[in-house]
């Protein structure tokens, strides 16, 4: 038996969470040169606020991916959960269902709807053992279909104040939505690093049979992760509604591509069991900064997509080169 000196390997693996840090630094430098406004607190706060909904969905997806599963339907929850909750609360004249539940219930209802969709996903995937990819692909269509059907495709403009509040108020100099992101990410980082429950996600994603043999209640944890994921997506929808002042029938549509891009360039593996929440956060920041710089520089609109895609591709290649290992 050789005593293999594996230390350097370990160090490198830890670095994987940090591979995007140089990219972020680069973007900050480029941005600073491109436009003097860029490095102002105001602009950077805007970036954070604009990305807060994306960030929460990335958090949800990262938790699900680390557990070795997959959820595409989150993007539809971002629109549908707040829309349904609002329709339960506002009068029929403002496109409500006519139930006119008390406005105080609006926020709990949003979260409840998200949790319910997550629970249904979890049921089909964990209990019924269907493929997560395809279940949530179908649910992406179904959930958005419910949103369209119930709202008849209309935007909801009359939204209870409590919901708008979350997306538009500031607290100690930062928008409330940014505080949400900071607190929830910090919480998730700590739980995933230092608590058995968090470590269980890695174990399940890494080798589900081994996790089961070690006494982890795999089904219960997975189901919980799907419910949490749905809830976080609903919260993201809430923040987005507050930021935009209403809910269009398209809210969240197409977002899932960016969610995966952020999570994966941030080092979260599609194969489960690998990656960190901090890494996912750096992925969100890269995407937010790129968007902001493209806007500030005023790149011709038709070329923005390309530059965007190239930056994702390059981040990916950088993290391959720095991370060293073949990806999965």
């Amino acid at each position: 038996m050789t005593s293999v000196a594996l230390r350097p390997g370990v160090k490198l693996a830890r670095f994987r969470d940090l591979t995007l840090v140089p990219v972020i630094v680069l973007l900050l430098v480029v941005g600073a040169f491109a436009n003097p406004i860029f490095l102002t607190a105001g602009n950077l706060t805007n970036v954070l606020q604009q990305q807060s909904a994306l960030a929460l969905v990335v958090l949800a997806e990262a938790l699900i991916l680390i557990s070795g599963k997959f959820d595409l339907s989150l993007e539809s929850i971002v629109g549908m959960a707040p829309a349904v909750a609002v329709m339960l609360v506002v009068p029929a004249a403002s496109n409500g269902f006519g139930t006119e539940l008390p406005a105080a219930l609006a926020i709990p209802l949003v979260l409840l709807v998200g949790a319910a969709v997550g629970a249904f996903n979890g049921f089909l995937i964990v209990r019924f053992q269907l493929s997560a990819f395809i279940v949530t692909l179908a649910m992406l269509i179904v959930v958005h279909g419910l949103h369209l059907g119930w709202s008849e495709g209309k935007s909801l403009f009359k939204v209870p104040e409590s919901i708008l509040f979350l997306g538009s108020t500031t607290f100690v100099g930062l928008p409330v939505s940014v505080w949400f992101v900071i607190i929830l990410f910090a919480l998730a980082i700590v739980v995933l690093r230092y608590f058995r429950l968090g470590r269980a996600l890695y174990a399940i994603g890494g080798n589900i049979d081994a996790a089961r043999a070690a006494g982890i209640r795999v089904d219960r944890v997975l189901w919980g992760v799907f419910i949490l994921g749905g809830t976080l997506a609903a919260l993201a929808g809430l923040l987005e509604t507050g930021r935009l002042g209403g809910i269009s029938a398209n809210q969240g549509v197409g977002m899932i591509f960016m969610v995966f891009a952020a999570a994966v360039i941030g080092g979260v593996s599609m194969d489960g069991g690998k990656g960190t929440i901090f890494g996912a956060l750096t992925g969100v920041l890269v995407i937010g900064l790129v968007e902001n710089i493209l806007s500030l520089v005023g790149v011709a609109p038709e070329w923005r997509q390309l530059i965007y895609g190239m930056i994702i591709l390059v981040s990916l290649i950088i993290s391959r080169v720095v991370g060293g290992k073949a990806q999965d």
Partner: protein
Amino acid sequence: MTKRFGPTTALDDAGIAIADGETHALVGRNGAGKSTLVSILTGLQRPDEGEVRFSGLAAPALADRDAWRRQVACVYQRSTIIPALTVAENLFLNRQAGRGPIRWGPLRKRAADLLERYGVAVDARALAGDLTVEQRQLVEIARALSMGARFIILDEPTAQLDGPAIQRLFERMRALRAEGVTMMYISHHLEEVYEICQSVTVFRDARHVVTAPVAELPHDALVAAMTGEAGGVYRSRRGAGPGGGTARVVLAARELSLAGKYRDISLSVHSGEIVGFAGSGSSGKIGLAETLVGLHRPDTGTVTVNDTPVRDVPSALGAGLGFVPQDRHREGFVPLLSIAENATMTIAHKLGRHGIVAPSRQRARAVRLIGDLDIKTEGPHQPVADLSGGNAQKVVMARALADDPSALVVINPTAGVDVKAKQALLGAVEEAAERGAGAVLVSDELDDLRICDRVLVMFHGRIVKEVPRGWSDHQLVAAMEGVDA
């Protein structure tokens, strides 16, 4: 207990009783139901009929994993190591801490202590995925032993270990027994049963056949109980092999080196000759064998098969080589594909013209191979995933032999296969040699190497000794340990 999987009955009203404090062997052919029994005894599966009792008390509810883990610890046949986590975390999986936060520093310390106590030279901070197969196995064993359970199950723990590692494990098991720990031990190495077990239970065809003290069941009787027919240790059918110099060289290596694996290896294998390779873990023998078949490119030197240089696997196969890779699950077969398809994968181009694979010819060829190697199956169309381990290994051997190779490289061909299958597999190598093939046989098991005309011993990446047929175990082991070079 009875346990069915769809149409398969894995356990048919079979039972076992293990006395307090004994080390009890469970043996049986591949697919006899041993691992199924393990999963029931450790609470992973519920039997269709029957029940488990610990010290006369009913087993815990299936959902109560903690209660099960207090009763019984287990080294499963399939790895339960999580590659992306550190060794320390694997050792303390789901018991890293109580309700509060995990303190990683002390956890690592505990892990390092544990590893040291069991003589496992592995860094607790390393990622488990970076360990060798052997190291992982040792980590699993250390974990099971550390659970504090009074009853421990070991399902083929030695299949991936070399001699010294096995001896270390046995010392540990003896110490545990002295402390009063009860163990159930599964292995296809029957000599191990006699070495450390007091009693033995035999399963055959999903049924319990016999339980007896080991002293009352000599080797031949044990094999007979397992197979249902009389038999013994595999004995080489051939006498002394051909005198090396005269016959044609079918496989040659010249001054091969590969950094971190082996250095300055030269080798000639003649037609009709079987050359063995022995060496302890990380001696480089596997790396060398994988280079011979084209899986690795050496830093320097050349390999030729029938005078054709080997650049990669296809060129090696094209030159007339057949081989059995180290790990059948990883590179031996495609589980979802049929026996016929797996066995003929390397000769697909010979089963039809213009890139067509004629199903009839494929089937015919497969039927012949199934017959030659006595593969237990309902037919050539059965997916290999449905076969027991020994039979799957025979399919891998069938693939190696499919093209009547003139050179054969076989790595650990009998790992985890039962005694009958072992005979069939070694017999197949010998038959190939008799037909004029030259073979390289790399194995951790001394018994396998007995069919070789000469054995080359590797140590730290070099060939340190060549011993002709007729060696003694002691002689070979000493060379492998580097004590006699």
